[in-house]
């Protein structure tokens, strides 16, 4: 049913294939990369794209294609882990908030309001400036500042689902609150979470690229799309390939996540006729 509807949306299928392809690239990076991404070759500095180096080389003679292939790993794992953290926090707080209501709900929702009023990007910059740049800090801060919209979504689902009769039926056979929340209601509330997860990954990748570009994210020599872009910025006038290709990679990745997320949303929405 879901697949039938999803397959009708050609754009979403393309997005899905692209996302799937990115995963394949990340997993099989050592097999796909023509060179070692960290090998410095001073005889091959700033080579334009050609037969030996398809996407050229950078200022230290490293192969751009290989660095980008390895960079896929970093970008994807930051996106995924950060949003996984956000989703777990959001789902738990949203469930509790929606199920119990009243004071607990008010407290959690006001916390959401407070968190939403903090500009994430500047919070990240501040934290990274204090504790020093690290991939893990980036993931955690993105995760800890990204759970609010998911909490709101889950809460809204819970508000309607908790009034449904099957919840009362579960209570009438003696199920505990925790059991009702996580076993009975939550599986019914996950649809919007899937979509928000996928869209969130794109946002996190974009944020990581932005941070790396500013020098606060992934530190060289570890390759990430953001820092390849940064390194290339200085040579922009003589070596356009250094910024063009990572830029295109970020653009395509985010775009494919967005169209995939939108496609899933449409396929899961029973009100929408496809």
């Amino acid at each position, binding site marked *: 049913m879901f697949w039938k509807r999803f397959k009708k949306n050609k754009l979403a299928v393309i997005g899905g294939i692209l996302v799937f392809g990115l995963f394949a690239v990340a997993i099989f990076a050592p097999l796909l990369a023509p060179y070692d991404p960290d090998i410095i070759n001073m005889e091959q500095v700033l080579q334009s794209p050609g037969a030996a180096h398809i996407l050229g080389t950078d200022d230290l003679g490293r192969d751009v294609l290989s660095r980008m292939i390895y960079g896929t790993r970093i970008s994807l794992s930051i996106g995924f882990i950060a949003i996984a953290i956000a989703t777990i926090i959001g789902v738990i707080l949203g469930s509790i908030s929606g199920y119990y*209501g*009243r004071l607990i709900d008010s407290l959690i929702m006001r916390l959401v309001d407070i968190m939403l009023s903090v500009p994430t990007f500047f919070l990240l910059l501040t934290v990274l400036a204090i504790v020093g740049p690290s991939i893990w800090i980036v993931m955690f801060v993105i995760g800890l500042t990204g759970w609010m919209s998911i909490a709101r979504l889950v809460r809204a689902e819970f508000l309607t689902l908790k009034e*449904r*009769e*099957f919840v*009362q*039926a*579960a*209570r*009438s*056979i*003696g*199920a*505990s609150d925790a*059991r009702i929340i996580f*076993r*009975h209601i939550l*599986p*019914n509330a996950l649809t919007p979470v899937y979509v928000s997860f996928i869209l969130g990954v794109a946002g996190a990748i974009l944020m990581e690229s932005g941070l790396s570009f500013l020098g606060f994210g992934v530190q060289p020599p570890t390759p990430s799309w953001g820092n390849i872009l940064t390194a290339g910025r200085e040579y922009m006038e003589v070596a356009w390939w250094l910024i063009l290709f990572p830029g295109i990679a970020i653009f395509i990745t985010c775009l494919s996540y967005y169209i995939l997320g939108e496609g899933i949303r449409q396929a899961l929405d029973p009100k929408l006729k496809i």
Partner: protein
Amino acid sequence: MNNCLLEVKNLHTSFFTDAGEVKAVRGISFSLEQGKTLGLVGESGCGKTVTALSIMQLLPNQAKITPGGSILYKGKELLRLSQEELRKIRGREISMVFQEPMTALNPVFTIGEQIREAIELHGNLNKKEATNEVIKLLKDVGIPEPNKRIKDYPHQLSGGMRQRVLIAMALASFPSLLIADEPTTALDVTVQAQILELIGALQGLKKIAIILITHDLGVVAERVDFVAVMYAGVIVEYASTQNLFNEPLHPYTKALLGSIPKLEDKDAKLNTLKGSVPVLTELPAGCIFYERCKEKSARCKDITPELVEVKEGHWAACCLYEKG
């Protein structure tokens, strides 16, 4: 009264809404012996379901049971138990079958998983034993090919089948009391009969007491031992089924029985009960049935009749039978 399973005394339940306090149940008392059936009859909104939910203590947040009443189950006061203790009673001692089989099953789990959960919550069977138990239960409630059906999702079953599944779920932990809240309202007539027959058969098999809530007197006539007729939150008449049908005492019961169409005289006009149930936020003084009563007298307007024993085992709350 040692074999008394459930004893409800002076139960008041109110909803606190923005429009004021809605007294849904206003001081009802009844008792039920082990293995017997009680029919709770009345029109929509007369407090039948609220009574059931009060016994289970599954009332929504805005509803409160007024202190002073008592619900004794096997001699234990249910109103004083903690949430944890109540949880152990629900399902294992008292369970409930709901009105809407379409929505009372969780759409994302197979029926096998849902019944198994009911078993596992109260027993200590391993997964395989529990699955066997599920198959046995499904066979008991008359579902064909139970070992295939346990892998079905609720949407793959018809309404009657789902109600059977819900009954299996309710019976999973061998409760002593089953509350069936209009179990057949959402089903069509032939299926209704099957489900009622099933409930009757299971009662004989498992020796459970049943409270059958319904607005259909026909359902009550065949299946229950005692009937309590409710009107606007109170019991207006209580008797054995036979007595109630042979000799209804309260004008409301008479009117209800009179409004059942008879097959014999096809040309007769259908008797109806004019008017509607009084609004529960602004109850009139005196008898609540006054407005619609055919046998009213002047003093009905002032006196609120109590439930009195008119004949042995036959109680009614009406000025006609008040002494003095």
